[in-house]
């Protein structure tokens, strides 16, 4: 068995701009995707995630570097010779064929015997719960159903790797959530490596075994959802995934797992933790998630406790989302509403004095950019 399902080794993809310049859509990218893994590439538009996926599929070829599938270098091999299949963003179903003909297309191209095609198309339709839709035209089906056909059409070929290019982007929110779970279950069932491209962080966190966060053609961090969220390795990732508060400062104590940052705007020191290498005097940024800040009416600890004024408060059902002002620094604080009550005193309101506590294990110290 090969080491990796897919590997991108030092891949660069340069495009010519209409103005005559050139731009690296993918910039010295390295990525190793394990067998049977649900791997997501996450980033905003233009970060190179779709280009990377297209290079795995063979629609684009790297300017330099190499794409490996099952340890085989792909070079300039065209898409129809690669053991991968793609689910396209707009589904790309053939409207001049029935649903069953769409699914059979790839098997016909492989010259699979007719009887086996019939059987496998039936199985694929059952797999996506569209068993009786084979004779319909794709345009007669809803967006979610078309999505499943695109999935069945790609999976029926039993590819080594399934590539998915924002396949849920066109669906409405409720259907999207359903499909996320369904897709994840399907991936577990078939055991095929999925490479999933999305700009939706929640989607990536929900479905993926591992996520690669990308920006400007580079991978910033690869890790499990919990690592990406709880231990982002840079300011960009901390900011891109979820919501966070940043405090800028300078390292005053740099011991292993115990960092102290002087934050001038708070006129105080913040104790935190971090995995990057720091020395005293380095500029640093503290990232702390809004749900990890503790709000109280009294002063609690001597460390990391700051007096604040609550400037705004929004009740959103599950949470109350507050904005507090600590010596001029605005912080987002989310409090979960774990008690069901109509008593307004249970919720924090604006213009109150309060204290926030930033627990050191939640205050992640990151290198300044």
């Amino acid at each position: 068995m090969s080491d990796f399902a897919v590997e991108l080794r030092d891949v660069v993809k340069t495009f010519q701009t209409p103005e005559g310049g050139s731009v690296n859509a993918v910039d010295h990218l390295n990525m190793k995707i394990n067998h049977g893994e649900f791997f997501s590439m996450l980033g905003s538009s233009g970060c190179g995630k779709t280009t990377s996926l297209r290079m795995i599929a063979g629609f684009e070829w790297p300017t330099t570097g190499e794409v490996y599938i099952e340890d085989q270098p792909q070079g300039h091999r065209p898409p129809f010779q690669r053991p991968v299949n793609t689910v396209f963003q707009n589904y790309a179903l053939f409207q001049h064929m029935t649903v069953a003909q769409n699914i059979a297309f790839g098997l016909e191209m492989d010259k699979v015997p007719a009887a086996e095609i019939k059987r496998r198309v039936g199985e694929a339709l059952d797999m996506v719960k569209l068993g009786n839709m084979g004779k319909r035209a794709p345009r007669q089906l809803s967006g979610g159903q078309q999505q499943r056909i695109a999935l069945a059409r790609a999976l029926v070929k039993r590819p080594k790797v399934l590539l998915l290019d924002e396949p849920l982007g066109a669906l409405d929110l409720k259907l999207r959530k359903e499909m996320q779970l369904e897709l994840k279950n399907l991936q577990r069932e078939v055991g095929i490596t999925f490479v999933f491209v999305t700009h939706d962080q929640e989607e990536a966190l929900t479905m993926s075994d591992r996520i690669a966060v990308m920006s400007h053609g580079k991978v910033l961090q690869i890790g499990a959802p919990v690592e990406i969220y709880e231990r982002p390795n840079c300011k960009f990732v901390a900011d891109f995934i979820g919501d966070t508060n940043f405090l800028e400062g300078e390292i005053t104590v740099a011991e292993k797992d115990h960092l102290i940052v002087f934050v001038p705007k708070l006129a105080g020191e913040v104790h935190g933790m971090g995995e990057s290498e720091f020395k005293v005097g380095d500029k640093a940024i503290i990232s702390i998630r809004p749900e990890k800040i503790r709000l109280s009416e009294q002063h609690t600890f001597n460390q990391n406790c700051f007096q604040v004024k609550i400037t705004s408060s929004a009740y959103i059902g599950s949470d109350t989302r507050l904005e507090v002002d600590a010596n001029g620094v605005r912080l987002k604080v989310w409090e979960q509403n774990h008690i069901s009550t109509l008593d307004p005193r249970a919720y924090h309101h604006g213009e109150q004095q309060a204290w926030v506590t930033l627990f050191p294990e939640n205050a992640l110290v990151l290198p300044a950019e």
Partner: protein
Amino acid sequence: MLRKLRESKPLQGTLLIAPTLIFMVGLLIIPLMLTAVVSFGKRNSDGGVIYTLTLDNYTRLAGFSTNCDSGAASCFDPLYVNILGRSLTLALQTTIFVILMAYPLAYFIARSSPKRRNTFLFMVLVPLWTNFVIRVYAWMMILRTQGVLNGLLGAIAGVLHIPFAPLDMLYTPGAVLVGMIYEFLPFMILPIFTSLEKIDNSLFEAAADLGANPIRTFFKVTLPLSMPGVIAGTILVFIPVMGTFIVSDILGGRQVILVGNLIQRQFLDARDPTFGSAASLILMVMTLIVTYFYTRKFGFGEEIIAV
């Protein structure tokens, strides 16, 4: 009154179609009916019509001649059947050649960058700025015995020291075919281009992704999805070619007489409107039959005509 108009959809509809309806009834339906009536009549000695109910004009078209060399009362003369057959053959040939030439060109234009695409489409349309008849005359200059093409071939032969006698190209069926292809090519390029351009690029990628090489992608995806354009183009080319007489008149002379020329001559030279009317109706029926079977098989290419 205005209020009634505002509230009544049928009244609005009537007003919207009224101008065209009046025009078409007056200048198409009524004349067509007159043509039908005349075609069953007899010609009098000064080119007028005697209104009777005779099938003489149609039997004459079908080849039953009353003007026989042998002195018999009637004999078979395939003259007009041949003309009708030749017209049909030429229209089919023209359509096929035009498809074969237009498709690759339309494909090329559809695949070029949007900026260059407009330039190419513009170039396709440029010939249409010159009058139809003038363009046919230009082909006469090219094809005649002392024309451009013979001059060019002679020069090449001269350089290669090959004996060369000018070719008789003008006034041949080939000359008419070339002229027809030239005149009607743009009407095939545009609809095919439109249908090709509408095919989303991701469909080609999907085909490749599923294992189809470029040739199979073409026959399984590109061609079927562009058929509406081919069909629309065929209708736009086949019907006019069946009826036109200018190209065959100028490039075919007396050698290549098509049904269009026959009709023209009956009205203008032979002064026999009854026979001309019969030929007109037969032309129309032939065109309708071919178009009917064609569209029943392939549809109208509605998507393209609607664009």
